[in-house]
């Protein structure tokens, strides 16, 4: 018995190690792509501190140093090199929201919404999570605030529809019952909006299918 448990434990550990190694190799390969591109780019723009023969390249060194601090002669490029400081808060909030969607963590979502109260995409996700958890009051309140913010910010309804679809793809809501009915009705409306906007038949078909599912959810 003890032997068998040890064998299982070893197999699990090996599987975990293999998984980790696989992941590391994956990003390592990506990193190698990037490094190779960067090397070629630096040589092409004479931004390398060394010449191909190994001797020092002063001018290239200065330009390389500028690249390290994110400066170039192009002001538009400089603006984008510096933008991460301003959008890093949004990036972090987005990551936290992704985790909260995946984990169904309402408290974490509320924290993110508190940090960026005007972001309607977060409220859309929160509404769907509330529906999944049977919290209809929150679903209603967050849904209303999504529409209010979208109107205030001039967001086209097609974009709200895309966010709704994305939320239902990432947050599991039961297919049946009152929750399922509401979910399918939301999706029906979202696909119908996209069909109206784009005229693509696939959206009409998806809207029809969602309407059928909404009916079936109450049976």
């Amino acid at each position, binding site marked *: 018995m003890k032997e068998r448990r040890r064998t299982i434990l070893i197999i699990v550990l090996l599987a975990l190690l293999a998984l980790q190694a696989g992941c590391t190799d*994956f990003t390592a390969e990506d990193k190698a792509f990037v490094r190779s591109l960067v090397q070629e780019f630096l040589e*092409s723009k004479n931004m390398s501190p060394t010449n191909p023969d190994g001797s020092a390249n002063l001018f290239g060194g200065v330009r390389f140093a500028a690249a390290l601090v994110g400066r170039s002669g192009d002001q538009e490029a400089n603006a984008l090199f510096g933008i991460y400081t301003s959008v890093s808060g949004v990036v972090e909030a987005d990551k936290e929201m992704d985790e909260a969607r995946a984990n169904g963590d309402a408290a974490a979502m509320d924290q993110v919404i508190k940090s960026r109260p005007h972001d309607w995409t977060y409220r859309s996700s929160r509404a769907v999570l509330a529906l999944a958890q049977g919290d209809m009051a929150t679903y209603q309140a967050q849904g209303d605030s999504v529409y209010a913010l979208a109107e205030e910010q001039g967001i086209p309804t097609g974009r709200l529809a895309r966010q709704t679809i994305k939320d239902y793809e990432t947050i599991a809501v039961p297919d049946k019952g009152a929750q399922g009915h509401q979910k399918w009705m939301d999706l029906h409306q979202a696909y119908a909006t996209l069909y109206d906007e784009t005229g693509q038949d696939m959206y009409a078909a998806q809207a029809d299918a969602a309407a059928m599912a909404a009916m079936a959810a109450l049976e």
Partner: protein
Amino acid sequence: MYCPSCGAANVETSPQCVACGAVFLLDTPAWLSAQRGYADLTARYARSEIDNAAFQSAHVNLAVRDAAGRTWLPSEDPERPYLWDGNAWVPQEVARVSPAAPGVPPAQPAYQTPAGVPPARAQRSAGGPATREAPPPPKKRHRLRGCCLGTLIVLFVLAAAVIWVSPLPEQWGLRRPAAEKAFGENPEPDRGASLELEAELAQAGVDTTGLYTYVLPYQDGRTGAALYAVLDGSAGFSFPDAGDQDPVLATMANLANSPALAAAGVDRIAVDYRDGSGQQTIVLTAPVDAIQSFSRGEITRDAFFQQMEAQVDLRSMTEGLLP
């Protein structure tokens, strides 16, 4: 002889102008030679080849007596040589007279060393200026110090220029950051445009895991927007298989060819690649039309690189290369 100061006619041996009182000093060969000797002496002194005492001793040996019986020593200023006043060497402003000046009657040399007698002996016998205490040597011109000062000034100017073009003045609040100028103080991404983009990529079968896109409308009076795409390896991003194409550039091309971005007026794209640990590795940016031209094969890779700019992280670029 005519006075160089007032032009009045004077007799050849006159020590000073009868009209304006200017003190004459003839540029005789002996005096010119003494001046050359002085120039050589000061150069040797400046190079520290001779010390103070040697300078003074050699300096006094350059004394020249003129036709009027006055004894002169060259100085740094040719118009203010030293004159022995009987007690000490005093600087004396002089009007220098060229013995062969055009339009001026040639003058006889004021002083000639007697034949067969070396000038120094003649000078010594003429009153012994060598025994007199010589004037102090000129202040050493520290060429090295001057050179260092020049170098320091150049370095200072260079450092100031480097600091000015670096992001430091922005961090110190001396200059408005380029990002703030272009996108405002608190840029608010156009979420809807990103959603459209992600939907398009998903339809095209591109895995958008770990891809965060931010469409940032310009706030500086321009219309349109820029796309800032974070490709986060720590959040599961990996480059799609692009066949024989470069996967990084293929990703940029996927973004640049998006109709959603065109609708949002995006004219520039930046991709911020982060590795498995979330560490920023590089930010690449290029105008959308350049990326599109490259993806259609209208411009070469090298021509495309010339339109691209990069911010490189040194640590991740040298990882494994440095000890």
